[in-house]
Every structure is written in C-alpha cells, then in structure tokens.
C-alpha cells in the first residue's frame, strides 16, 4: 500500500470526487494558479479548469455565501479557507445560512457543501492565527464537523463529506499536512460519525481527534514503557455527529478516561464528552474523567510558552497517572 502525505490524501480525495461528479467544484483563496497555500489543490486547475477550480479575492464572507448559493441550486461546492482563523469572517454564512437552510425551507433546500482548511495552532503563528474552532462549529445543529488525524482517514472522510447532503465543516491542520500514512489506491470512503480505535488497551481510554491523536499515541507509548499501563486510543474522527457508543464502549472496558483536545477547556469538546460519560457510563467509572486541553489563554507567540500552552504527551501521562492512582 502506498505511503503518502495527509496533503496528498486530501488532494486525491478532491480529484477523485471531482472526476466522479461534475457538480463538485473547489473555490477559495489561492486554490488555482498558486495550487493552494498548502498545496492541497496541486494539479487540480490543470485537470479541471477555471470553472471548477475558482480563485477568489480575500473575501471569506463573500465566497462562502457564493458557495452556499451554488449548493442551493444543486452544485456541490468545496470551499477552502486558508485557515479557519480567517473563516471567522464567514461564520455568519456557515452558521446562519448553511446550517439553517434545510430546516428553514421545511426540508426543501439541502446544502451539500464542504468548508475545509487548517485550524488550530501551528508554530508561532500567534494568538489570532492559532485557534481551534472545533467546539464552535460542533455547537451548531445543522452542521457536521469532521477532523481526521491520518492520511487514510483524511481521504476517506473528505470523500464522504463531499457526498453528504449536509454542510460539513472539515478541520485539517498545518502541522498534519506532512504527516505520512498508508493510503490504499482506488475507491474507499470512511463514514461520517464513526470513531476509530487507534490502539486497543485495557487500563484507560484516551479520547482524542485530529492533532491530539499523535499526542495520545506518544503518551500511550510512554505509559506502556514506564508504567505498564495499556491505554486505548479512541480517535473521534467526526465531532458531530459524535460516536458516543464508541466512547462509552471503551470507558466501560477501561473504567477511566482522559479527553485530549486542542481547543480551550471552557465549553470544549471534552466537556461534552465528559457529560456523555457521566450520563451513560457512570457506574463504570473508577475515577473522575480528566481533560487535557490548550491552556485557557490566547496562544502565546513565545515559542516556549506556546509549547507549554498546548496539550502534550507529558500532560496526558500525568493525567493518566492521576486517575490510575499511581501517584
């Protein structure tokens, strides 16, 4: 099986879906001639032409709205944001138009659109350009929110997102584009709403998604080597709809859980997961559910402070030790 990057996996998904369905088109800043700020759309302009790979001005609200309009009349747009930090300008279109249209038209007007781009912190992009908006979009009924961690999942989930009849917020990461992984040649999809157990274990469940899957994997390795603790890693892959069954199944097995996420703690994804766990797995818990999140501050520019503010394997290990009563 070929090993390719996350970036190329997304590129394959776009290319295959555009070949498969003439209604699919890509629109955003620098997606065409420049072939994408992160080269996700490399080669697509040559392959599909200007009608289907559309360079836009720096007008997030505008092109998000144009995309939604296109979806209303039957096209299947993929809107690329150079980063989700810029998409704050378009959030009115995403939340008020894309997420509501099916509901407010009495089910007459589906909006099959994908908004995609990198989110969260990269390296020293400072407070305004390092934000994880996962929980913001996950809050909204009418949206689906997807956040793949591996090239395999990125390709399979983007294909499913494009084929979905609902607006999908697709969260990538600058720090993940170069990540490599095995991706089979040819057609496959990964269904939305299904978590994936990335590592089987018996002692503690690490719930994570996107970038924090790597954090959890490193923590799991350290826990196994240093403490003999077998962590189970549940990669959510889709935030909304959330695969609560997978989480509860794992917690029922391990009796302990740490939720790792890139965003801020307050009203974060982890807060919602903890709520499900206390509701559905109460009698399985042998310890409180802990969360490892970004620090509750704007992301610092200073390199060391930035590192300290982000979720790290060390903090996950520390949390696990606490709830396995090793300390």
């Amino acid at each position, binding site marked *: 099986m070929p090993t390719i990057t996350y970036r190329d996996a997304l590129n394959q998904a776009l290319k295959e879906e555009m070949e498969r369905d003439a209604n699919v088109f890509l629109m955003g800043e620098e997606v065409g001639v420049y072939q994408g700020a992160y080269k996700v759309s490399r080669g697509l302009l040559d392959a599909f032409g200007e009608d289907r790979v559309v360079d836009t001005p720096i007008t997030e609200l505008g092109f998000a709205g144009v995309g939604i309009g296109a979806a209303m009349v039957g096209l299947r747009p993929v809107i690329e944001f150079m980063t989700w930090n810029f998409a704050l300008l378009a959030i009115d279109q995403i939340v008020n138009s894309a997420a509501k249209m099916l509901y407010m038209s009495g089910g007459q007007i589906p909006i099959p659109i994908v908004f995609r781009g990198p989110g969260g912190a990269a390296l020293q992009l400072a407070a305004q350009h390092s934000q994880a908006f996962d929980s913001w979009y996950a809050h909204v009924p009418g949206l689906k929110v997807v956040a793949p961690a591996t090239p395999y999942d990125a390709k399979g989930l983007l294909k499913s997102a494009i084929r979905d009849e609902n607006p999908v917020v697709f969260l990538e990461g600058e720090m993940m584009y170069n990540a490599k992984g095995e991706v089979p040649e040819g057609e496959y999809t990964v269904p939305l709403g299904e978590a994936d157990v990335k590592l089987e274990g018996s002692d503690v469940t690490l719930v994570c998604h996107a970038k924090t899957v790597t954090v959890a994997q490193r923590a799991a390795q350290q826990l196994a080597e240093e403490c003999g603790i077998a962590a189970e890693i549940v990669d959510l892959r889709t935030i909304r709809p959330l695969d609560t069954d997978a989480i509860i199944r794992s917690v029922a097995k391990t*009796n302990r859980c740490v939720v790792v996420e890139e965003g801020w703690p307050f009203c974060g994804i982890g807060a919602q997961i903890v709520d499900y766990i206390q509701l559905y797995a109460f009698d399985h*818990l*042998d*310890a409180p559910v802990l969360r490892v999140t970004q620090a509750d501050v704007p992301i610092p520019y200073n390199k060391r402070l930035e590192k300290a503010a982000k979720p790290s394997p060390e903090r996950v290990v520390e949390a696990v030790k606490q709830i396995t*009563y090793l300390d």
Partner: protein
Amino acid sequence: MATKVYMEALSPTMEEGRIVKWLKQEEEPVMDGDVLAEVETDKAIMELQARGEGTLRKVFATEGDTVEVGTVIGVIAAADEDIGEILATVGATEGERRADGDVGPERAASGPDTAAPVAVAGPHGAAAGAPMQRGRVKASPLARRLAKERQVDLRVIQGTGPGGRVVRRDVESAVSGPRHVHAPATGAGYEDAPLSQIRKTIANRLSQSIGPVPHFFLTSEIDMERTAEARDELNNVPDAPRISYNDIIIKVVAQALRQHPECNAWWQDNYIRYFNEVHISVAVSVEEGLITPVLRNAHLKSLREIAAEGRELAQRARERKLKPEEYTGGTFSISNLGMFDVDQFTAVINPPEAGILAVGSVADRPVAVEGTMTVRKRMRVTMSCDHRVIDGATGARFLQTVKRMLENPLAIVW
C-alpha cells in the same frame, strides 16, 4: 481551614448516635485523631475522632443528645478563624445535614443485601479485623457497583485513592486478597469453591421453598458424663480460669469444624467460601437483644484461652463496648440457652454463615444403657444448616463428630 465535626456512622447499621460524653470542651485545642466524644451507637459505645486540627471552637450537641448520622455537631478551626458562616448555616437549619447525600447511597449500597441480624458488615465484613471507616465513604461509582455486586461493605475497605477514595482495586483485593490478619502463616484463610450445577439447583429450589436461607435442623442427644467429669477436674486445678460446658463445646465445635470444613463456610450467592480457620460467633444476650462476639481462630486456642477470651468478650458485649470487627466475620455460630433450663431449641442462622448450633441444658435424664435404665447427664444440641451449603448427611457427620468428642473429651487433644 475550619473542619465540621459530623456525627459519623460508627457501626455498620448506625443511623443515629447519642453523645455520652464530650472528651474535649469548647475552646480546647485538638489534634487530628484525638477522641472528641464518646458516642453510643446501636451496638456499643464508640469513640468519635477529630478529623482536623486546631481548636474545638463550637459544639452543637450536648451530652445526652441523640442526633442523626451526618449531622454537624461541632466545628474545629484555628483559634482566630472566622467561623461565622458555619455557625450561621448550622444555626439556621438546626444541625446541618451533610448535603452531599452520601450517607444515603452508602446505606443503600449495603442495605437490603445484608439481612443478617448481627453480621451486618456482610460476607466480607470485618473478617479481616480491618478497621471500619467512619462516616462518609468516598468511593468511585465503579467501586460502589462492584461492592454491591460482591456484597462487600465499603466501610471496611481501606481506600487507596486520593483522600482515601475506595477504588476498584481496593474492592477487588478485599474480595480476593488474604483477609484474615489473625491467620497463622498457612496461606489463605479460606478457599472459594464455584457452585456446581446441583448446588445451584439445591440453592434455588430450597430458597423458593422456605425463604432466603433454607434452614433444616438436626438434633442429637449427647452423653455428657465424661465431659462433666473432665470439667470438674479442670476446675479443681488451682488458680486456673473456670471452664464452662460452653467453653468445651466451643473448643469441640472448632475442632470438629476443622475435620468438616464443609460446614465451616459462607454462602456467597455465586460461590461458597470454605474457611481453613474457625471463627466462632458466640451468641451473648445483652440488655436490648443479642450480639455475637467472635472467638477468632478458636481451633488454635486452648480451653483456657477460650474460657478467658470468651468471658472477656461477653463482658464487653454486655457493656456494649465491642468494636464492629469483634462481632463480625464469624464462620459458625453457637447459641447456648442451657443456663435457662431449655432442653432443646432451634436457632436462626446468622448469614452468611452456613450453620449454627443450638445448645440445650445439661441435665440428668433416664437413658437405656446396654439394656438397663440408668440416669446420666445428657445434653441436646440442634444444628441449623443452610441447605444451600450443607446437606443432611454432611451436617449429620459433623454432628456425629461433635457428639463423639463430647462423649470422649480426650479427643480434644487429638
């Protein structure tokens, strides 16, 4: 930081307690662990310990008051600390109840499953002689569930989590670990046997028929001539403790149980726990009922030790000074009403134990011996058996051993 002093559950079944005496007075300094007061529970007079240090700033209950478990009865704080807020809340509700509701669930967790009249600590009760945790038990939800499923009383488990929280591993080690601290170095004090299909069927069918503990009864009349002689001779030894019939019966039963471990067992719902050690629960009548202090490792003790220890336990039982671990964890019970001239009676099993021996009076009775009517000292004993554990023939064989030993007391030294 101010520490509220709560009326704690000092016995497994305690719902309220009476302040017998404050051993610390208001404005007196206290250290963590100091005895603050003597509290009369439903079973005994117990010590209420300080859970913080500083000064006993205020007490809300006076001597003689009976207050519910969970009620705030005092405040420990630094001498100059402002405790106005606590005083206000306690004053407002006249004895603030613990708001966290833990007093309730904890009772629920151990309530209906442990129907034993005395051994309320449940099967795993204080068999270990483990100190009872007092007041609110902190336990993870999983630990609570497991404790309920396995009928372990959370209050006898030492929690190893933060702040003494009882967590899964604590319940598991309480169920499986070596729990008999008095045990001689012979390995585990018991052996758990899974239920065979026939045992399951017997258990199910008989429980349906006669109640949760399906009793049956075996009565035997024992010739006590030689035991009486032996007792008299022992009691002629100067400066030795007086030996009673009951002491000899305890000794004999303990020895017999070692020979018949199938009668020295606990019914545990999905398995049977057979003990290698013999802990005899001895029913002692006290003013308001009865209690069963436990003579631990009775099979290892001499008659003198049994006599001395039994007397001491009975005395403290009557004074209501037994600690919970002293009246739980028995493996077999003896109830003797001989001193009331009762010829014979049937006793009710003290679950999870599987048997109890009801002992009648030693009396002169006419008997036929080798074809001739003669008068001899005779005693009737009736063994109540839990049929889920003990079958008729099993109990009969045990009783036969008891009879033979009492009729030939030299057997005690075998």
